[in-house]
């Protein structure tokens, strides 16, 4: 077994209104930052997982996303290995 550091990035589904992103965009514009065309606010979940292999760790993270971490109605997720350990 090895420990794997995994990053799960969760973002509002493309095409879905993201009120939080919009509010941040308005704030940036009112602070006179130019050219901010779009803002989407998501979340980052760092997992440290014990697994037999890299692929087993990624598979486990995928199962966690489907079961709990992301809501498929409103969110997309991306899983990436952040480095072995």
């Amino acid at each position, binding site marked *: 077994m090895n420990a794997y550091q995994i990053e799960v990035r969760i973002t*509002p589904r493309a095409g*879905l*209104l993201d*009120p*939080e992103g*919009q*509010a941040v965009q308005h704030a940036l514009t009112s602070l006179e930052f130019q050219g901010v065309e779009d803002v989407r606010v998501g979340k980052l979940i760092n997992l440290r997982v014990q697994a037999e292999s890299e692929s087993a760790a990624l598979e486990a993270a995928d199962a966690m996303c489907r079961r*709990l*971490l992301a*809501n498929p*109605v*409103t969110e997309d997720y991306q899983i990436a290995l952040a480095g072995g350990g």
Partner: protein
Amino acid sequence: MRVAIITFPGSNCDYDCYKAINDVLGAEAYYRWHRETDLGDCDAVILPGGFSYGDYLRAGAIARFSPIMDAVIAFAKSGGPLLGICNGFQVLCESGLLPGALVRNRSMQFQGEMVRVRVDNNRTMFTHIYDRNEILHLHIAHGVGNYVADEETLARLEGDGRIVFRYVDERGVPSDEGNANGSMHNIAGIINEEGNVLGMMPHPERSVEPLLGSADGLPIFRSLAAHLSGTGVA
């Protein structure tokens, strides 16, 4: 009617439901802590409002996996009446008992206010005492009540009359202006295909006596009691 009210860590409308059912309706409610695994002897179950688990991750996402939820889901699958109010609605969506999801209000703010809600379907076990298109004054108290679903789900909900409550303006029209929180199709409450699981963001338990500013929520509990005693129409 005996009603089990499920209490999660962070539930805060459990007592309002308890009081509405026991003191105002004159039926019998009791609490069930989320760690229990059976519901006790009940005819109906309520998932009350609040902020279970601090709304961490997503509203309702963690409560949905509480030990009691297996029993709640089994109860609903066997046809038992299940009402989810506010956070309870979020838990129902997270658990897949109702389609769609609830996201941050369009206003980006927590909204605690009285809103107008239209009864679009009065042929359910929860709403048969209302008139169709009756306008209710109910409280909302949420930051995450903006209903979203894909087009296919929305078309199915519309086609099957499963949108039970809609936010409306003062003319009773589900306009953008009358949309309290930005919900798609002005949805304030929906029911499952079988007609025994209702989820709604407004709080009927907070509007059960004129003293509270409105008694428009009481007929939900009266409808359910009548249905269970065999005098309902649904």
